[in-house]
């Protein structure tokens, strides 16, 4: 039996449960190692007047301090636009921005030295909000637009139309392992850096530029991350470059280490958005036109903001066909840490907006929102073209909408909730079902490529490496399964080694849910090439003409650790390991590099048209919430989730991704609130003040099912990428709150609610509704 499709435990499971798995901070100190950290800007915006490190250098244990003139190569870098400084030179643009790099013998000395650095800054006026940025025309990059049909015409001629604004908050990645890197100087200017990064190649290039050495002098290795979630896609590079710079200057190993608090204070988060929309619909709630202006808070530099805005715009339709639509977008420049990737990459914000609109249409028409959703869903044969011109194929949405309401007993529970809300004076219940149609592929075409290296050793065991980095999502486990099956050997005969730029060059970040799709396909390519070569050789070994059987490569089968001729499977066979041993002696090449480039994807940013995604991953979730009418406190009582996973490579790991992604999405829309002081300092910089879901927030009833979909022929082994899509289903918890509030909204009025729906937000919304007039509970429909 093959490994693909099996519930094989995570590659690192045994190490994780026994504490043996090595994360970077678990690596024993290298001989003569120093610790590295930085002292940051005291203000959000200003001109540096002076930097005084004289006291800091006197702190016992401090080895060296560095400022921007000490950077050997370029001080300026950036993943897309080069607008970030490793160490601020003239201007500081957010609180805590690295200004002085400190190297010390101990963590204690580092702490003391940080406090002793004096940075004096002439303050300039800062921008902290999207509104302020819009008012001051403070943007990053040009405006973006995707448009189809006659939006203005449809809006003016419509019988029903309305407008609104939705404010969406950011989210801290809160990977448990903070940013970290360990740099080891080598010979002749070479450098090896262990980094907790989703993008070793980018770290490599930035380190090279900072050190002023060619790329081939720098090797970046990532064995595993203690969580990434997008937060280590671009923003691991700064810490890695800082460690490398110190290591290069001092010729000593250097470990960059910051506390969770400093990590939260100084790194980017999910982008807050402000959506301004106008929508038109008919009597049945079918949307005829949508005009949405999206403003994201990019923070102080570009980072990935432009691509994130793009994905938000490409998901403005979510699962719905909207004939006339205009989506415009801008990235606001503010004086906060540069916002960055976070699982979903703008998609969640785009989806949230249209789901909010659907809830509002439902409330206005007095029709259950599930009906409005069904009426607007992308069709299978018609009404199936997205605003950017891609046709929605293998559309599982109608099927999902057919199955989930049944298994979740939607109608029965709706009646119950109607009844409950009519009678309860203390509590409110709400329920909502939202879908997701998440586009799989990087929207930047170049990134849709991967390479893999597969080496077979003479005992028949195999070592694989790819550009995919492991952050718990199971890419290594799936790659092992793929290689084992392709070579017909046991899963245990294969291991996947640390991701490293010396084995796999020019790799893409492990992001966009595509880690397995890309790297698995590259590994398969290598295996296919190896198998062909080995089949040629095996044909000469299995059949030598005796018994009338001549060698035939096409008859050679690799299975269960054996290689045999399928014309005589019982006597023309040998162990895989024996074949390899012989092949080595006969000088057959036993290593191969595989390559994969996603076919057919293309998107034109200028026209906003194209085929950006290889396929879509679909899912639906139905969430029910219970709200305390006096405190605004909210509990998620039940969630039913159905996900189209294609044919999963590893159903167990997939299920974990789905549940985990949903819980993260639920945190974003409910409890996770970033609080900033008036001076732009993050107040919520630890788990004491920033509340991610804990064990008691898990829905009391939580049913997760995978939809059987064998017809997905476009991707790897008919599987579907699942890293990000389930996160977007967390939105159903927020719309459920909105639904609950709609029960007490006066007729024709709509409950407004910002995101996240913290108890405070909910209470404010409740208060507004009750003050606004009718406090009496109105029954829906």
């Amino acid at each position, binding site marked *: 039996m093959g490994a693909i499709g099996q*519930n094989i*435990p*995570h590659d*690192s*499971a*045994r*190490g*994780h*449960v*026994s*504490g*043996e*798995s*090595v*994360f970077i*901070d*678990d690596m*024993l100190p290298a001989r003569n190692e120093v610790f590295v950290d930085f002292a940051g800007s005291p203000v959000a915006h200003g001109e540096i007047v002076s930097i005084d490190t004289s006291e800091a250098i006197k702190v016992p244990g401090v080895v060296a301090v560095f400022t921007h003139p000490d950077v050997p190569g370029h001080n300026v870098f950036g993943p897309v636009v080069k607008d970030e400084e490793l160490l601020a030179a003239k201007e500081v643009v957010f609180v805590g921005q690295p200004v002085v790099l400190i190297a010390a013998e101990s963590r*204690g000395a580092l702490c003391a030295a940080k406090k002793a650095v004096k940075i004096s800054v002439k303050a300039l006026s800062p921008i902290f909000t999207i509104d302020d940025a819009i008012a001051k025309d403070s943007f990053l990059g040009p405006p973006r637009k995707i448009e189809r049909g006659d939006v203005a015409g449809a809006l003016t001629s419509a019988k029903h139309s309305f407008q609104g604004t939705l404010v969406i908050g950011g989210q801290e*990645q*809160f*990977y*448990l*392992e*903070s940013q970290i890197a360990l740099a080891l100087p080598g010979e002749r200017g070479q450098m090896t850096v262990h980094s907790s990064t989703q993008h070793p190649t980018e770290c490599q290039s930035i380190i090279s530029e900072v050190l002023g050495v060619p790329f081939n002098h720098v090797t970046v290795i990532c064995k*595993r*991350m*203690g*969580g*990434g*979630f997008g937060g280590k896609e671009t923003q691991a590079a700064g810490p890695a470059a800082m460690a490398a710079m110190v290591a290069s200057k001092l010729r000593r190993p250097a470990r960059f280490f910051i*506390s*969770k608090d400093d990590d939260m204070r100084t790194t980017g988060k999910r982008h807050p958005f402000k959506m301004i929309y106008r929508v038109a619909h008919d009597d049945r709630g079918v949307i005829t036109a949508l005009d949405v202006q999206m403003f994201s808070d990019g923070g102080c530099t570009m980072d990935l903001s432009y691509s994130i805005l793009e994905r938000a715009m490409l998901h403005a339709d979510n699962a719905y066909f909207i004939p006339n639509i205009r989506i415009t977008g801008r990235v606001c420049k503010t004086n906060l840490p540069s916002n960055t990737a976070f699982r979903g990459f703008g998609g969640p914000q785009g989806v949230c907006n249209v789901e909010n609109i659907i809830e509002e249409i439902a409330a206005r028409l007095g029709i259950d929102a599930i009906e409005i959703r069904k009426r607007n869903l992308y069709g299978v044969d018609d009404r199936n073209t997205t605003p950017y011109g891609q046709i929605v194929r293998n559309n599982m949405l109608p099927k999902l909408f057919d199955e989930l309401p049944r298994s979740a007993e939607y109608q029965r529970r709706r009646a119950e909730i109607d009844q409950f809300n009519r009678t309860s004076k203390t509590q409110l219940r709400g329920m909502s079902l939202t879908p997701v149609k998440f586009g799989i592929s990087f929207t930047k075409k170049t990134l849709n490529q991967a390479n893999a290296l597969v080496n077979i050793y003479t005992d028949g065991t195999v070592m694989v490496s790819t550009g995919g980095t492991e*952050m*718990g*999502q*199971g890419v290594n486990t799936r790659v092992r399964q793929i290689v084992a099956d392709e070579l017909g050997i046991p899963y245990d005969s294969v291991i996947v080694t640390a991701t490293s730029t010396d084995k796999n060059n020019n790799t893409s970040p492990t992001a966009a849910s595509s880690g397995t799709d890309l790297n698995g396909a590259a590994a398969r390519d290598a295996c296919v090439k190896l198998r062909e070569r080995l089949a040629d050789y095996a044909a000469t070994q299995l059949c030598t003409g005796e018994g009338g059987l001549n060698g035939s490569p096409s008859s050679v089968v690799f299975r269960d650790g054996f290689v045999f001729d399928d014309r005589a499977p019982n006597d023309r066979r040998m162990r895989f390991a024996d074949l390899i041993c012989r092949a080595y002696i006969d000088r057959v090449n036993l290593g191969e590099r595989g390559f994969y480039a996603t076919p057919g994807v293309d998107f034109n940013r200028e026209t906003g048209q194209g085929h950006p995604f290889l396929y879509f991953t679909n899912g639906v979730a139905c969430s029910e919430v219970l709200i305390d009418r006096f405190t605004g406190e909210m509990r998620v009582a039940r969630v039913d989730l159905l996900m189209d996973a294609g044919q999963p490579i590893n159903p*167990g*790991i997939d*299920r*974990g*991704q789905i*549940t*985990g*992604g*949903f*819980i*993260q999405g639920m945190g974003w829309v409910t409890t996770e609130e970033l609080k900033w002081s008036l001076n732009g300092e993050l107040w919520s910089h*630890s*788990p*004491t003040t920033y509340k*991610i*879901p*804990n*064990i*008691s927030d*898990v829905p009391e009833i*939580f049913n997760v099912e995978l939809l059987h979909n064998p017809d997905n022929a476009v991707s790897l082994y008919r599987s579907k990428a699942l890293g990000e899509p389930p996160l977007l289903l967390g939105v159903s918890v927020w719309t459920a709150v909105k639904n609950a509030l709609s029960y007490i909204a006066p007729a024709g009025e709509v409950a407004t609610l910002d995101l996240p729906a913290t108890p405070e937000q909910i209470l404010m919304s409740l208060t507004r509704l009750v003050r606004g007039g009718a406090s009496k509970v109105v029954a829906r429909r």
Partner: protein
Amino acid sequence: MSNRTDRGGLSRRGFLKGAGVAAATTALLDRSVEALAQENKESRSVVGPGAVAITLKVNGQHKDFQIEPSATLAEVLRVHADMTGTKIVCDRGSCSACTVWIDGKTVCSCMTLAMDARGREIKTIEGLAQGEHLHPVQEQFIEHDAMQCGFCTPGMIMSCANLLERNKQPTLDDVKQACSGNLCRCGTYPRVFEATLAAAKQMKGGNGNA
């Protein structure tokens, strides 16, 4: 978790009282320094600054260390004992990634002074398995995919395994209670429930009723 607060002995705050009298006077305006000094004399002698020699019993073995008296147990385990299975995340008692057992009770090792663990039985994730033989909770975590990135996992397992020491037939609520302080950003919680209940079943006498 009820016993999380029940650390006994010295906490970071207790340490300040004991060792940093002079430095801490501003915070003690309403209590006379003499009274405090008297209290200290009665309760414990002043140590530090500067490294002191201590012996800790970790996973049944006595180990000697030279540490700053202000060092936390988490730090000593990771840095001095090279036992890096115990993780540090928040370093302030609000995520439980650093959970170990002292005298059979779970504590946040980032909030416990190593000094204070002298003469007590410390158990870490490294000591949970019997050689190659994993603890049932560890086994079931693997079986039920109860980990993703694995960073919270050692702490989570120490909390769950401790529950099974105290309660052979835990309910789902007991499990939730036991790891209510353990944060997992990967969202493995539902798997943690399943794994722990299955481990209870696997251990003799448990029926894993939920």
